[in-house]
């Protein structure tokens, strides 16, 4: 039987090691710096309360990321959160980035944020977390085919935006 003290240490080890990565993931899911930190804090609090069970799962980090994704899908629907002032994560420009590249990234980021929540989640998990579709399906608790469908629709929408902005078609 794990003692409460040992559980604390294990939770802390996890939270300190993975907390920054969870915050970055939450920033991309929410598109809002402050909301992301609130979301991670909320998820970690609930993870703490049931850490004994989570720690016994095969992949605790996968489980916590699933909690984060689920919480996000519920979170944005909450009225006060939708109405909150948005503090967008700033683009961290690299040394060689031109103004045109920054503008292009800002536009693409705006398009990603405009995607439906599940499509946006798949895009973030695939292209930022670099996860395969099977793992994404586990996190989102859906079939792999559903992940592919969300990804295809999200990418199709982004390509369409790109095509319109390139050709000037309204």
């Amino acid at each position, binding site marked *: 039987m794990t003692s409460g003290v040992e559980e*604390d240490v294990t939770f802390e080890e996890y939270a300190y090691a993975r907390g920054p990565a969870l915050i970055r993931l939450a920033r991309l899911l929410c598109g809002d710096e402050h909301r992301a930190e609130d979301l991670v804090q909320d998820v970690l609090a609930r993870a703490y*309360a*049931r850490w004994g069970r989570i720690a016994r799962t095969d992949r605790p980090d996968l489980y916590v990321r699933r909690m984060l994704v689920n919480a996000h899908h*519920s979170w944005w629907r909450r009225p*006060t959160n939708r109405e909150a002032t948005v503090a967008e*994560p700033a683009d*961290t420009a*690299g040394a060689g980035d031109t103004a045109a590249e920054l503008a292009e990234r800002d536009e693409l980021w705006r398009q990603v944020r405009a995607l439906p929540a599940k499509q946006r989640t798949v895009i973030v998990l695939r292209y930022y977390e670099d996860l395969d579709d099977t793992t994404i399906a586990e996190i989102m608790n859906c079939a792999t085919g559903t992940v592919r469908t969300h990804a295809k*629709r999200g990418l199709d929408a982004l390509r369409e935006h790109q095509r319109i902005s390139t050709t000037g078609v309204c």
Partner: protein
Amino acid sequence: MSTDLDQRLAATLRAHAGGETDPAPIVERARQRGRRIKIRRRGGVIGAAVAVVSAAALLWQPATAPVPKPDGILAPAATGESGAATRPDLVGADPWTLHFDPGALVAGARHVEWTAGSGIEDVKYWGPAGSGRLLLTRDADRLDSIKQVLSSSAIEFEKHPVNVRIGGRTGTVWSEPNTPAEDLWFVRWQPIDGVWARLETYAMDGADAADLAGRVRFDSARRCTVPFELTELPAGSSITSCSVTLAASSERFSEGTLVVGDGKRWLVVRAERTPVDDEPVVSVDVDGIGNGYTESDGRTVRDGYRRVGDLDDLSEWPD
């Protein structure tokens, strides 16, 4: 194969994920709040005052919680429709009607998803006062085949049910060792002959869960409605299922889904509010397992999508 868009997406997301953050303040606050959650749960297991704890759960909210507008999450009353108590034969048969009223169950929820049709009536609710899911069907096997539970994990039930009385009827209650949440309880009962119900809810104990189940009323009905209509359907097809998620705020509409089918095939039309736009983003899913509609069918249905009424005024939505 990596494409230009793939690479630009990866670069864009890396750039907007932000830099390193000191996790210490967040971890410390999470620990403090997590301890309070554990204490509440332990208090719940030890304590015997079911009603008192339920009331305390209603009162407990984070300091920044919004003032709830309880009626915002309620689907409209289905005037002229009977509840399951008088028309059990209609349960699950009508995509526009839920033949029960979970009003007392969902009170205080921040958002509620109402689903009807295809043999099942389903309400999911989330909020500071508690979360839960109620399923109603005429098919007991169908009910037992639904493994997706509130914890968002599909589980294999290892139930060890205990008999309880719910509204004068016999039922069973159990908690599941396979769910990560220790306080997720299941109540299964037959509120009316020929109709089966299952409630999944976070509760103190089995008695608390059974008490919640007893609050569901079956003498009235509620309507599933969405702020859009589909004017073009493939030949021989009809709308088989409706789902709408409502929020307890002035922005009532969160998401609406209509399933189109013909008994063998199905496609899904979903309208969803995003954090960016007030006007819903509409998607049509035609691929997936178990359907046979073509992309052309999907385009036809999509072209027939029409927004109806004010997004947040349910009185303007289609009847």
